[in-house]
C-alpha cells in the first residue's frame, strides 16, 4: 500500500457544490506525481481538502495516510503525520519572523513525534540547517528575519514554501502551483530544490497547469485532471503530449468535437 492513497475521493464546498468527483490516486515515498489540469478543474480544492481546510469537505471515498483514514483529522494532526502543502498563495503573518515561525513549526512536529513530550530542536542545529537550506534555495539571509510572507514578492513566497518543506521534512508534500508567478531562473531553483527533497523518506504530488516545472522536477507519473476527475494517466511523456496538444482533447467539449 502506498503512503498516501485516495479511493473514489469526493470533495465539496460548504454549500454542497461538488468539486472533486471521485479520485483514485496512490503516492508513495520516493515518487513524484504530477497532477496536471486546466484552471478551475478542482486541483487546488483537492490539495486543500487533503490538508484539512475546513471549507473543503471530503464527502465520499477514502483518504488514507499510512493506512490511516485522515478525513476527520485537523490540519495540524495531518501535518504531524508528515503531510505538507506548499500553498499557491501563502498567507502573511505580520510580526512573526520566518525564523521564529520555522522553529515553532519544527518544534511542534518534533513534539508530536516524541509522543507529546517537548523535544525542541537545539538552536545551533536549527541555525545550521536553516542557513544551509536558504543558501541552497538562493534565499537571501535577510529574509530569515523578515515577517513571514509579509511584503514578499511572489518568487520569495514560493521559495520560502520550499524552504519550509526542506526544514519540516514531510513524508508526502503536495505542491500547489508552486511554479506560478516564477521567472525561469527562480523556477529552476525551486523545482530542482523539490526534486532533491524527494527520496526514500519523501514523496511528492506536484499540482500544475503547465509542463514547464516538470522539465526540472521530472515526475515518475503524470495524471491529467479535468472537471474533478483524473481522465488520463501515464509516464512523463504524457506531460509533453499535453504541452503540445493542450487540454482540449480531455475536456468533455473536446471529446465531443
Amino acid at each position, binding site marked *: 500500500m502506498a503512503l498516501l492513497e485516495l479511493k473514489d475521493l469526493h470533495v465539496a464546498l460548504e454549500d454542497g457544490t461538488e468539486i472533486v468527483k471521485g479520485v483514485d490516486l496512490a503516492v508513495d515515498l520516493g515518487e513524484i506525481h504530477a497532477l496536471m489540469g486546466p484552471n478551475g478543474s478542482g486541483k487546488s480544492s483537492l490539495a486543500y481538502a487533503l490538508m*484539512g481546510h475546513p471549507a473543503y469537505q471530503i464527502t465520499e471515498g477514502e483518504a488514507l495516510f499510512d493506512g490511516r483514514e485522515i478525513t476527520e483529522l485537523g*490540519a495540524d494532526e495531518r501535518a504531524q503525520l508528515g503531510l505538507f502543502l506548499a500553498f499557491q498563495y501563502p498567507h502573511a503573518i505580520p510580526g*512573526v519572523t520566518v525564523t521564529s*515561525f520555522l522553529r515553532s*513549526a519544527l518544534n*511542534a512536529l518534533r513534539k*508530536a513525534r516524541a509522543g507529546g513530550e517537548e523535544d525542541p530542536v537545539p538552536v545551533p542545529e536549527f541555525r545550521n540547517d536553516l542557513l544551509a537550506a536558504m543558501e541552497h534555495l538562493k534565499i537571501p539571509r535577510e529574509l530569515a528575519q523578515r515577517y513571514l510572507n509579509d511584503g514578499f514578492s511572489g518568487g520569495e513566497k514560493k521559495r520560502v514554501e520550499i524552504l519550509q518543506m526542506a526544514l*519540516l521534512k514531510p513524508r508526502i508534500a503536495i505542491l500547489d502551483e508552486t511554479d506560478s508567478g516564477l521567472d525561469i531562473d527562480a523556477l529552476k531553483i525551486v523545482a530542482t530544490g523539490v526534486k532533491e527533497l524527494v527520496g526514500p523518506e519523501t514523496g511528492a504530488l506536484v499540482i500544475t497547469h503547465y509542463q514547464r516545472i516538470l522539465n526540472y522536477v521530472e515526475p515518475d507519473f503524470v495524471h491529467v485532471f479535468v472537471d474533478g476527475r483524473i481522465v488520463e494517466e501515464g509516464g512523463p511523456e504524457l506531460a509533453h503530449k499535453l504541452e503540445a496538444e493542450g487540454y482540449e482533447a480531455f475536456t468533455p467539449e473536446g471529446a465531443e468535437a
Partner: protein
Amino acid sequence: MALTETEIVAGIGNEYKYGFHDPEDYFFKSGRGLSAELVAAISEHKNEPDWMRKFRLKSLEYFQARPLPAWGGDLTGIDFENIFYYIRPTEKQANSWEDLPPDIKNTWDKLGIPEAEKKYLAGVGAQYESEVVYHKLKEDLESQGVLFLDMDSGLREHEELVKEYFGTIIPQNDNKFAALNSAVWSGGSFIYVPPGVSVDMPLQAYFRINAENMGQFERTLIIVDEGAYVHYVEGCTAPVYSSDSLHSAVVEIIVKPGGRCRYTTIQNWSNNVYNLVTKRAVAYENATMEWVDANLGSKLTMKYPAIWLMGEGAHGEVLSIAFGGKDQHLDAGGKAVHVAPHTSSIITSKSISKDGGRASYRGLLEVAKGAVGSKSKVVCDALILDEDSRSDTYPYIRIDESQVDIGHEATVSKIGEEQLFYLMSRGLSEAEASAMVVSGFVEPITKELPLEYAVEMNRLIQLQMEGSVG
C-alpha cells in the same frame, strides 16, 4: 520571569498561573471601609509630617465629593465600604529575601523576582498588600547618587524633594481615583536619578495583592534629572477570589532637559481586580518620555498614560497593549499634550479581544496654540478573535495650532481562518496558531521590551489564548 521556551510551552493550559494566595499572618490590618479616622490612622501609623496628613484628609474630601465617572467602564460594582484600605504585612522592610516570612518569600520565588534580580535588574522593590516588604538597589548606583526607595521611605529620608514634586503632576483632585489614592496611598516607588547618570539595567517594582477585598494604592514619583536615563518596570498579579479587589495607583514622572525615562508595565491582575490608575509625565527641553503599557489582566482597567511635552524638542511615546478576555473590559490608551514648539509624540495602540471580552482604545492628542512645528502620529489597531468580542476606538484630538503635522490611522481586523489554516498545516495546534498571530500583532511593542519581558509577554498571551481554543 526569565523562562525557557520549554517552560513557556509547559505553562500552556494553566488558565491563570498566579491565582494562589498565602495565609494571612499580618503585622497590621485595618478594618473594612473608608473614613477620615482611617486616613488619619494610616498617616499616624507611618509617622508622617503634618503636611502629608492634611494632604490626605483633603484628598478624602475630594474623593467623597466627586461622583463616579460616567464614561469608560462600569464602576458601579465597586463596594468602597467592603474594601481593606491598609494592610501592613511585616513589621520591617527586608533587604534580603531570606529575612521575609517564609510564605511571602515563597510567593516572590514563585513569581521569579529574586532570580530576575540576580540576572538582569539594577534594583528591585517588592510590594505585598500596602507595603514594600523588600527593597534593594545595586551599590554602584547608590554611590552615584541614584535614589530608589519605597515612597514611604522617600518621604522620610528626602522630604524636601518629595514635597517639591508630590501631587504637582497629578493634582489630588485630578479625578476621583487619584483623590482616593492621594488619601490612602501606601508604598510605591520613589526614584531620583542625578544629572548625567544612566541606569543601564532596569529597576523593577512588583506589586502583589494577597488578601481578599484588598485595596492597593501605591504611589510612585520618578524624577530624572538633566541628561539622565532610567528604565523602570512594574509587574503585578493577585489571587483569584470570587469578590473584587481594587488597585488604584498614581504615578508622577518628571523628565528634566535632555533626560529620558522609560516606564514599562506588564499588568496581569486576576479577573476580580478593578485597575484604575492615573499615570502622567512631564517632559522638558529635548527630554524623552516613553510609556510601554501592556494590560492583560483585571476585571476592568481604565488607564491612559499621559505625557505633557513642556519643553521645546521634547518627545513622547506611548505603546499600549490591551488584551480583553472573558469577563474583562480593558479601556486603555494614552494621552499626548503638546505645549512647547517642535515637540513630537507617537501613540501606538494594539487592542485584542476574545471570548466576549472588550478592549478599547481611548486616547487624547492635544496641541496647544504656539506649539508650532509639532508632530504626532497615532496608530491604533484592533484584533478581534471571535464574534462575541468587542473593540472600540475613542480617539479625541484637539489642535489649536495650524503649523503641525498630525497623523492618525486605525485598523480593525479579525483573525483569519486562512491564516490559522496556513499555520496549522505546518503542525501548530489551533491555540498555538492563534497565539502566534496575536504575538505577531503585538510584536511592534514586544520588540521594545527587554528580552526577558518580551518572553514573559508572549507567554502571557499564550495563556490568554488557551482559554478560548483549548
